[in-house]
């Protein structure tokens, strides 16, 4: 129940302003109704009490407006009480209005329905009931006291003649209809809004639970990556030693050997280097995935591209590939993790060089985009088959046209995508098999 109340008061705080607006509208409506009644229908309504009531409503509405504005920080705790006081004041003002415009002879008494529906939705159950009974009591008192002649009757001149307020049957039937309508609508509204609130609360609880479960999953995934990282690290270092030792033998430092041994040893080296690269990729992906926070700094993209180019161009050595970097000087600095963004460029460029044949082209193009930069790494290489496009960023996936011909782990692009998305960016690719590929990504300037 407490949480139900707090849910309501949260909603109430939002609705208080709305109620204040509604009250201004009501004042306008009363004035228009008055003018229509007197000018169009030639009815006679005493103007002074009416305008005093309007001024009173306007005055307390203005006060509430100021109150909400000044207390906007802690309005939540008070919202329920403020709304209840407003509702009571509204009832009193409307009852006075009804009293000065014919009492039970005024068909507008049924407009109290709107009041009771709104307050029953917004206020707790008990207060909804209280205000409904208050409406019934006040209107009942007006009817009764007028009937008994204890208070003066203020008729709408020219509307009803003959003083229906003195007709017991009329007074009784109208009051009974009025009171039952008010009470029944109040109870219906309360029961519907209670049910809705409970559902809403249940939804909130479920979504909080889901959120918690999701956080746990993310943490589990991070722990898994940490574990993979440790294992990969431990595997990598002996593999690295093996390669070092094979190289010493293979390059003849440990003495000469016949060609057959040399050939076999080269094959061993090839296989073990493939494993080494695989474990390196695994180490990279798990290291990045297990890191809790990004190591943010302001980066000059051009510098990163140059570093990445230095590193990656080895893959294209001897192929006479034409390289072009187009990165204007006025590209803004980007707040990002240096190592990770460098990895993105290295990976995309290595792929570009690896899959581009003799005499092809590889290019990097960077331009400013909305609140960020847009980078493009393109090549005139073998491209990506259409059917592989949707899976190209999936872990361990390798394109049908490269699986057998070149070595790779299928982890690189998955990690690239992960990094870009972790930086709140987006990556996509356009490609045509045989013609080349263009990888494009956007990165926001600030994280």
């Amino acid at each position, binding site marked *: 129940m407490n949480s139900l109340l707090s849910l309501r008061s949260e909603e109430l705080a939002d609705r208080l302003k709305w109620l204040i607006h509604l009250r201004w509208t009501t004042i306008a409506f009363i004035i228009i109704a008055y003018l229509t009644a007197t000018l169009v229908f030639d009815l006679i309504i005493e103007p002074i009490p009416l305008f005093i009531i309007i001024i009173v409503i306007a005055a307390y509405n203005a006060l509430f407006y100021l109150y909400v504005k000044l207390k906007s920080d802690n309005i939540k705790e008070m919202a329920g009480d403020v709304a209840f006081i407003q509702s009571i004041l509204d009832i009193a003002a409307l009852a006075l209005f009804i009293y000065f415009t014919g009492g039970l002879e005024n068909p507008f008494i049924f407009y109290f329905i709107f009041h009771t529906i709104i307050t029953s939705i917004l206020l707790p159950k008990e207060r909804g009931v209280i205000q409904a009974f208050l409406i019934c009591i006040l209107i009942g008192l007006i009817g009764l006291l007028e009937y008994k002649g204890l208070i003066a009757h203020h008729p709408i001149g020219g509307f009803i003649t003959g003083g229906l307020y003195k007709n017991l049957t009329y007074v009784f039937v109208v009051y009974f209809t009025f009171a039952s309508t008010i009470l029944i609508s109040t109870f219906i509204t309360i029961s519907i809004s209670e049910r809705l609130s409970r559902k809403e609360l249940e939804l909130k609880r479920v979504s909080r639970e889901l959120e918690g479960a999701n956080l746990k999953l993310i943490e589990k995934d991070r722990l898994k990556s940490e574990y993979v990282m440790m294992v990969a690290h431990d595997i990598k270092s002996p593999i690295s*030693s093996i390669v*070092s030792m094979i190289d*010493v033998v293979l390059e003849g*430092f440990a003495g000469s050997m016949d060609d057959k041994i040399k050939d076999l040893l080269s094959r061993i080296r090839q296989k073990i280097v493939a494993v080494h690269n695989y474990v*390196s990729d695994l180490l990279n992906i798990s290291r990045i995935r297990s890191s809790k926070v990004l190591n943010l700094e302001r980066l000059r993209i051009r510098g990163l591209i140059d570093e990445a180019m230095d590193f990656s161009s080895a893959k294209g050595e001897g192929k006479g590939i034409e390289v072009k970097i187009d990165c204007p000087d006025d590209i803004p600095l980007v707040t990002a993790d240096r*190592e990770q963004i460098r*990895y993105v460029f*290295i990976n995309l460029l290595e792929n570009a060089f690896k899959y581009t044949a003799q005499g092809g082209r590889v290019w990097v193009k960077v331009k400013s985009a909305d609140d960020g930069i847009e980078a493009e790494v393109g090549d005139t290489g073998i491209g990506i088959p259409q059917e592989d496009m949707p899976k190209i960023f999936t872990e361990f996936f390798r394109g049908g046209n490269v699986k057998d011909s070149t070595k790779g782990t299928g982890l690189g692009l998955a990690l690239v995508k992960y990094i870009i998305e972790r930086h709140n960016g987006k990556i996509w690719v356009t490609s045509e098999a045989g013609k080349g590929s263009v990888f494009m990504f956007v990165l926001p300037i600030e994280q």
Partner: protein
Amino acid sequence: MPKVLLIDDDIDVVEAMKIALESKGYQVITANDGDSGYEKAFEETPDLIILDVVMKTKDEGFQTSYKLKSSPHLSKIPILMLTSVGRETGFRFNPETDEEYLPVDDFVEKPVRPKELIHKVEQLLKKAKK
């Protein structure tokens, strides 16, 4: 012939590098951890030190390099650092930008090809002579 001190906790890597360097006539002395490496450096005053980063602890090599470079007796000896942490992530190894943090003269990534190792050693010694 120049004297090279190899500091690496992997005795197989040490052996492989030793064979390669000795074949080029270098005199090679070895150590298997940072502390004994530091002591060896003091005793032998090598012309060059090849130092692994990850030994007993993740940054033992870094610690040793600080110690070596802050000793007046040893600070002039060039250090070639062996890294296996990978190229893109983790520690940063850019001698140009990180010089002030890491007092080493060059880096090479494991597994290093013998020819590349020899080339780097020659370069560093040449530079040190000048």
